[in-house]
């Protein structure tokens, strides 16, 4: 598929970080595993940053996880990233694919509607009727393409695919071959070096299927946890929002204190405990960093288009409601308790917090 960056809402990772990848490739002295575009260490630098080559850090939190993931991909195993929604699993898989294969475009987007055609191959029926089963009539799946090209195929939300579709991957991962009986007895696609599968999955959400143990055995599992370090989360949110606003050429004044408020609120509710170890009831809504970024982004847009360009606590307060109420009424009570006890206390000492309190309270009264 042609890439037309200017018209894409979100260019692929390899397009967004083309300079960094080029710089890493030029400086890469390490041995490349067969089929890889970069050495493992260069891929590590691409994801975790390398100040010498001005490569930005893109994944925060667990560096050892990235190293383990790289080793899994070098071996015969597939890589399965699991964890709560919004913990950057998909982003990590995209970055790994972009750096290792030079392309992150081979994706199966998992859902209940995924059929075998999406994982094995389908047919162009006009050609199939006209010519019979020929290689020309065959429509390969991203998995088959990845095997042929020796690349990484990403399977997003693997556990949302029906179990029989998931299990197609078992033989692909162990035999590294996909047979096409329609084209003749010996017609098979063999995986070229560099082929591997990165799956992302949520093991506990509603509407997911169990993974068979045979399939589990062919993957190395890595749990991606939410960020626990407020400083890291703050940095990440600031970077991400800056990037989004930059793309849209919007300039706002986003004070540090406001970012702190956002991060503190999220960390408190996510942990079910404040920094001073006051216990809270934990809402069931997903309080991921990705959600925090969305809130910050929306708050900035509101400030830019409806306000004077200064983002304040009130903007965050109004957006927070959207995240919390998504799921259930219980959560609203929990957040109300948090606001009434913790936020009120903080509002006495800080303007940003008191704006935040005011906005949340105003919303509550409406609802």
């Amino acid at each position: 598929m042609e890439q037309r960056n200017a018209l894409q809402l979100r260019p692929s990772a390899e397009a967004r970080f083309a300079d960094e990848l080029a710089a890493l490739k030029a400086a890469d002295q390490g041995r490349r595993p067969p089929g890889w575009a970069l050495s493992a260490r260069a891929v590590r630098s691409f994801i975790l940053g390398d100040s010498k080559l001005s490569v930005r850090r893109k994944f925060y939190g667990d560096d050892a996880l990235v190293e383990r993931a790289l080793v899994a991909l070098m071996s015969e195993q597939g890589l399965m990233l699991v964890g709560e929604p919004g913990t950057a699993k998909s982003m990590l898989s995209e970055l790994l694919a972009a750096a290792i294969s030079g392309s992150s475009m081979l994706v199966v987007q998992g859902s209940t509607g995924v059929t075998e055609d999406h994982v094995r191959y389908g047919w162009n029926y006009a050609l199939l009727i006209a010519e019979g089963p020929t290689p020309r009539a065959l429509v390969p799946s991203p998995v088959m393409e990845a095997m042929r090209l020796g690349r990484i195929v990403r399977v997003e939300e693997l556990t949302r695919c029906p179990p029989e579709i998931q299990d197609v991957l078992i033989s692909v991962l162990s035999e590294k071959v996909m047979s096409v009986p329609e084209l003749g007895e010996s017609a098979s696609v063999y995986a070229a070096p560099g082929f591997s599968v990165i799956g992302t999955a949520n093991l506990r959400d509603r509407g997911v299927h169990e993974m068979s143990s045979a399939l589990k055995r062919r993957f190395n599992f890595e749990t991606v946890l939410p960020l626990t370090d407020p400083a890291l989360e703050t940095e990440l949110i600031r970077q991400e929002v800056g990037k989004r606003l930059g793309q849209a050429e919007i300039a706002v004044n986003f004070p540090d204190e406001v970012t702190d408020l956002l991060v503190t609120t999220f960390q408190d509710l996510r942990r079910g405990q404040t920094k001073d170890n006051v216990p809270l009831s934990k809402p069931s809504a997903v309080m991921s960093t990705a959600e925090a970024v969305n809130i910050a982004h929306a708050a900035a847009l509101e400030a830019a288009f409806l306000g004077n360009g200064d983002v304040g606590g009130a903007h965050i307060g109004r957006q927070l409601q959207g995240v919390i109420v998504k799921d259930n009424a219980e959560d609203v009570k929990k957040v109300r308790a948090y606001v009434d006890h913790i936020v009120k206390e903080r509002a006495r000492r800080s303007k940003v917090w008191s704006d935040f309190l005011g906005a949340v309270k105003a919303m509550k009264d409406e609802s």
Partner: protein
Amino acid sequence: MTVLDPAATAIRLFDSERDLHFFPIRHHSPACALHLREALRAIRPATVLIEGPVDFEPLITELLAPGVVPPVAMVALPDGAKKGRGGTTYYPICRHSPEFIAIREASELGATVRFIDLPSRHAAMLSDRRHRPDQPLLPMREVMFDRGAYVDAMCARTGFRDGFALWDGLFEARARGTDWRGFFASVGAYCSALRAASDPDELQTDGTLPREAMMRACIQDAIAARTGPIAVVTGGFHTPALIDAQAESVRPAGAAARSNAWLIRYDFRALDRLNGYGAGLPLPGFYERVWQRLIGDGGETGDSLTEDILVGFRAHLIESEPALAFSFPTLRSMVETARRLAELRGLSEPGRTELFDALQSSAIKEEIEVGAHPLLAAFTTYLQGDRLGDLPPGSRLPPLIERARAEARSFGLSLEDAVAKTRELDIYRKSRHGQTSRFLHAMRLVAPPFAERLKGPDRVHGFRADMLMETWTYAWSPAVEAALIERAADGETVRDVAATILIRRLGDLEREGQCNNAAAAFNLLSIAFDAGIGSAADTLVAAVSTAVGADTNLLRLTNALVMGQALDSRAKAMQSDGTVKAFADLLPPLLDRLARRIAELLPDLAAVNADTVGEAIACLAALAEAMADPDPPFPARPLRDALQGLMAAQLDPQLTGAVIALAALIGLVDEAEAGRRLSAALAGAFERPGDAIRTLSGVMALAPQLFVNDSSVITAIDNLFGAVDDQGFLDLLPQLRMAFAELSPQETDKVAAIVAAAHGAGEDDIALLQQVPDARVLTDHLALSERLRGQWQADGLAAWLGPAP
């Protein structure tokens, strides 16, 4: 991933002009140990100075004695006079401790070994911000290796995840090199940087500066008395402060103090626990394997350390925790993963971190909750190791251990190995067995790992108080010695220490605001009795007496009475022994006081309502147990009077039943009278059948036989059922079931027979009923009979319903 520039520090570490050589080490580091061994063999020093408390010097000879198998520890006990100034001092030594290697090499080279740190009980060694006064003290604390600005910055730059991984990656990975100068230069440079980034105020408050003054003074002395090269082996953190030592040679005050220092057996588990306090590298079992491999010990199998450990771990799991064991292909991929990770991280071979990463990556096929997984925990325990140290027979031991051993032997307990043995004791009839039991009870307090009682009279409830035999298992292990060491400051005999512990627990009760808890205080007293601690009897009896006076909780008081009674009967049975006699004399006044106090509080039960009646019933049940004794060791009169009063009062229905039952049990009223009262209570409640049932369950809780033996009571109940309709009966059913659950099957049968007889049913009818599979079948059949009867009557066949002619 970076190599430190050793040049700047290297020149200063090895001063050939003064022939003075500094070896900065990290405690329990195999890499330091190996390089140190090579260095000492090359330098051939005449004097080896080691960072160790100077009062531990006499233990060096003991450490070198044949038969000493590390892990062992040098310990110094807190001075009894200065309580609250820190716990026991530990200086643990493994096979791979650089200090141990230095001592061994020095002895082989004929060099003099001196310890150059302040005495273990010096104020500077104790002054440390500690949370608990009895926390162990470690002269070799080295938390600065694990955290701090420099460690964080280095981790961020090199990509290692924490201080331990950083150390492993920078230094343990270089263990196999031959360039010991370069190695120590790197350690020195690293430690200088650590030192530069640490807070000078903290160094003063944690005692580092005075300790280093002592070390410098000792080095000066050694230089003055030199006979050849001098090697100085200290924690790397101190080295920068020692290198430039010139004129100053003033020892801090108190440097000559001596303490009671001992060499004891130690074990890896205890050692790893000390790591929580910054004792050095964690997981000693892992580093010992590393060491064995470095020195080529333990048989070359051709496998790598990684393979050895992972294969061993898998075998261990299959044997001990099969549910966690992983398959062979997983094992293979784990080894591969560990290797590749090491390669990615620029290490020559996988270290501790890589092993954990490989395990996590390959064997755990599910989400991991914040770093916690049973498999990772099992691996940690496995790498912790379970090696036990040993000392040659006849080694000098701290007095408490010596005496405990001697006493155990005098009772014929076998201490030769750590295998658990069983002993049966006839505690009342054989005085020696009684003494052994008391010793074992005391050891339960002082060193819990030593013994465990499997069977015997229950002290708390008086349950099985008439049991004559006790069964114990016991085994002498290093864990017992370690526990005794922990307690060594509290006294020299097991009994003294046990007394101290009990008095301390009493103090804990007071601190927790429990000094009015009669049951808890009495429990301590009965422990003291079991352990034969006569010396604590007076204090404890006084405390119990106070508690009894202050306690307003009737349940605790009655429980205490039960305990006291059991104690009294056992004291009488054992009266031959002197320490027991002390208790036997003290108990009667105490029980007297207890009984009167209970009598005083009994009338309060009149205020009990349906919510609190459960506890009140429990009190009466305890009282029934205590007063069942025909000759109780306490005055029964006041209690009987108080009960008499209760019987006249208006009570909660359930309590009414229980009080009547108790009165019958202790002979306050005879059974016939009890039956009458009960029938009256039941009859009086016919308008509130729920209350009647509650009265009944009050009786059942204490004396079900009262109900069974008196048919007038059963009749009263039966009449009650006559007064309710079917729905009313169903409403009562759950409560009834609860009440009748107290009956034994025979009793149930008996009640059934009485009720059946009252309704004109014979034994045959009951037998017929017993064959009915369940209630539903019975209902169906009854309905069918009713229909048939109606049909016959309608058909004019009523005659068929009569008895057959």
